[in-house]
Structures are given as structure tokens and as C-alpha cells.
């Protein structure tokens, strides 16, 4: 508009970095909250699916099927406009992403738990450990290590899906970027998309590398490889 003389598109992006940073903070906070909630729900759910019996196992399994089978957009809209879990868009988005992530993570952990040879559980029981003890001290430590690769995927998915939160009015990195070219300098659309993509890439790359490092650090020397 008139108040903003056209500057070069890259200069416009540079001048808007502070706004993009504010969006980035929302993206990172929302990802962290959702992954954490997803872990708190998904790990026990995965364990219940492997070892659980009776109604609890059925409830967990069905909840997982329903959540995995429902588009994230529908989950977030129901939680905000129909159920109104919270008047805060951030809390609602974190709950929606967290529930969905919990359903995904439960399958990561289910696979990891099932990958540990059953003979180990039998061996642990034979030296006098209880069932719960054996699961906790023998199976879980190995399973957690094997869940790292799947977890890397899950992190990447949640990070990028945070951008859906604008349907309930929570603007994060991508929304800030879109507002920049829609209202500020419309010719800078490509430059803004490239910059936003670069930020997503840096986030994904560093987190995946950190998880690789965690994976290496906790590797059992000479242990059975997954």
C-alpha cells in the first residue's frame, strides 16, 4: 500500500524476521506441548495394547482407531467449536495435536515393545522377576531405544501440522508468512515461502540430528540391533 514503498522482496523478508520469529515461537511451543501430551498418552496406550487384557485394552484400541481415522482438521474443529475444551486456541490446538499424536505414538511404542524377543521376558521371569518388573526393567529400556526412528517421523509430522491451528485462530509460523505477503508486500510470496521452508528444515534437521545423537548415546554396546 501507499505507506510502504516497494523495497526489494528479500529486504522485505529480512525486515520481517522479527514477526516470523514470533510465529516460530508459537510453532515450537505448540509442537513441544503436543509431542509431550502425545507421549504421556501414547506410551501407556502402546503398552496397554501389547500387554493389556479386557475392557481397558478394548477402549484404548478403539480410541486409537477413531483418532487415527479422523482428519486432524475435524478433530481440532470439534474440540474448539463443538466441545469447547478451552477458550484458548493454543490449549485446544495442543490437545487436538496431542490426542492425534498420542494415537500415532501408541503404534510406534506398540511396534517397539513387540520387537523385543519374547524369550527375554521368559528369561527375566525365570530368574524371579515379576511380569511388571520384567516389562519395566528388561523390555521397556530396549523398546524405547528402538522407538527413536519412528519418533523422528512423528516429531516431523506434528511440527508441520501445527500450521492447521489457524482454523481456530492460532497463527504460527506459516500463518505469519502468509499474512506477510497477503497484506504487506504481495510480490514477496515466493521469498517468504522459501524462508519459512528453510526455518522448518532447520527445525526438522536439528531435532532429527539430536535424536540420532540420543540414539547413539543410549545404544547398548554389542547389544542386539533392531
Amino acid at each position, binding site marked *: *500500500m501507499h*505507506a*510502504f514503498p*516497494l523495497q526489494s522482496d528479500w529486504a522485505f523478508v529480512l525486515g*520481517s524476521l522479527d*514477526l516470523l520469529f*514470533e510465529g516460530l515461537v508459537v510453532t515450537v511451543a505448540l509442537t513441544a506441548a503436543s509431542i509431550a501430551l502425545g507421549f504421556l498418552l501414547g506410551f501407556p496406550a502402546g503398552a496397554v495394547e501389547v500387554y493389556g487384557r479386557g475392557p481397558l485394552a*478394548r477402549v484404548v*484400541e*478403539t*480410541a486409537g*482407531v*477413531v483418532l487415527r481415522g479422523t482428519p486432524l482438521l475435524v478433530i481440532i*474443529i*470439534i474440540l*474448539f*467449536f*463443538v*466441545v*469447547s*475444551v478451552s*477458550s484458548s486456541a493454543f490449549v485446544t490446538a495442543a490437545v487436538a495435536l496431542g490426542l492425534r499424536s498420542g494415537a500415532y505414538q501408541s503404534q510406534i511404542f506398540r511396534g517397539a515393545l513387540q520387537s523385543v524377543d519374547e524369550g527375554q521376558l521368559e528369561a527375566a521371569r525365570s530368574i524371579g522377576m515379576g511380569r511388571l518388573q520384567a516389562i519395566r526393567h528388561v523390555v521397556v529400556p530396549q523398546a524405547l531405544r528402538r522407538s527413536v526412528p519412528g519418533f523422528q517421523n512423528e516429531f516431523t509430522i506434528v511440527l508441520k501440522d501445527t500450521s492447521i491451528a*489457524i*482454523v*481456530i*485462530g492460532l*497463527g504460527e509460523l506459516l500463518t505469519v508468512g*502468509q*499474512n*506477510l*505477503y*497477503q*497484506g*504487506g508486500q*504481495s*510480490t514477496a*510470496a515466493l521469498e517468504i515461502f522459501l524462508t519459512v521452508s528453510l526455518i522448518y528444515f532447520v527445525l526438522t534437521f536439528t531435532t532429527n540430528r539430536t535424536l540420532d545423537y540420543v540414539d547413539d548415546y543410549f545404544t547398548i554396546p554389542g547389544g542386539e540391533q533392531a
Partner: protein
Amino acid sequence: MRMSENRTSRREYLTAVGGTAVTLSIAGCMGGGGGGSDENEIVAGTAPGFPPFEMKQEGELVGFDIDLLEAVVDETEYTLTGWKEFEFKSLIPALTNDNIDVVAAGMTINDERDQTIDFTDPYYSSNQAIVVRADGDFSPGSLSDLSGHAVGAQKGTTGESVVQEQLIDGGSLSADNYNSYGNYVLAVEDLQNGNIDAVVIDQPVAETFAAQRPVAIAFTYETGENFGFGVREDDDEFTEALNSGLAAVQDGSTYQDLTNKWFGQQ
């Protein structure tokens, strides 16, 4: 032989889905309404990305709708406590769910929306402009000239309805030749890149683009469409207040000042 334990039968699935729906609807009843505690405090909702009506500049929400609604509310006994930003398609759910009390987002008054929400008196009339490349050979003079050319519009807008109802439904444009975009900017970008030959947009928006980019308005199509502020159906008192506020703003010099500020010489 027995069935695999991990399979959820159809019956179990339906029971669970039904159960979830019941839980959700009960929770919905307990959720209660949002909004301010003071009855005269209102929150407005908009969808930035529709210059010059509403957009973000340097992180600030600005535009014709923003200034106009604030001026209108100033004429009433209500207080506008703030703005919430949504995607355009979320505005009506946000309004009916009490997240916001009024929509100011260049929203065209039409029968479909009127079934769910109410509108104030119209505050702006906008026709559709057909935008083409300024240096191109293609200069249509009427909608029928668009036949056989790739045409674009923003999803969910009146421009899209014009293409759909006047061209595609009438058989003069094949549906393959219509491209729907998430935002006008992307449609105009594609026009400049030569992927489409024309874009159908609201006239004031088209004039903004024509001033900034190598595109031109080929002709305008009169739809006689009116923009109104969206309000809840049961909020009659508030609607009345906005209507008299709007009348006061239009009678004074404020309305003219705002159109001059945001649309230039009109």
C-alpha cells in the same frame, strides 16, 4: 480357527463412535458460552489477507473493515475489546459458537449465509473485476469471452460463484479450465506466470493489484453484491445498534474519509 484379536469388529467400531459422539455432545452442553462477562463488551472477528479490507501490515491488523467497524461501534453503547483472526471459512462457526460477536471480513450477504447468521445493513457494494495480464493479447469484454481460457478465483468467494454459475454451469467454460486458489495473491501470481489467462476478483481488490503489478482490469461484472457485518441470529438488539451506528457513520464524513483512505479516489 478364531478371529485375530486385534481386529475391531464393525459392531464394536460403531458402538465406540456412537459413544464418542454422545460424550462429545454432553461435553458440548457443559462447555457453556464464551465471550466477555460484560454484556456490552464485544469481540470482532476477521480473516486477514483481503486487502484493502483487512490485512496485516508489520504485524498490525489494518484495513477498511477494521476502521469502519471500530467507527460504527464507537457510535453505539457497546465497547469493542479486540479482534480475533480466523480463516475466512471458520468465521461463521466462530460467530455461532460465541468465540466472536461480529464478523467484519468483506462478507457478501447471500441467502446461504443468511440461513445460519444475520447481517447488518450493507456497508459496501462491490462488483467483480476480471483481471488479465497488462501486456497480454487477451482482453475480454464480457464473461462469454472467457470461454476456452483458463480462469482463476479464490476459493469460497463471489468470484468463484460467478465462474461456477455464469460460466461452468452454463456450459461456456469446462470445469478443467477453472483453477481455485487459497488466496487472491496466488491467483494473481499464477496469472502473471501465464498459467491462467484471467482472474475474477472483487473490484477494490483488483484495483490494488492493478496499481502494484503488471495486471489490468479488462472489465467489471455487475453482481450488485453487498458486504455486511455478520451477527448472530438471536442478537437482534446488537444488530439494531450496529445498524444505527452504521447509519450515523455513513451520514457523517467518517465513511467518506475511510473510503478515500483505503480505496483512493472513489
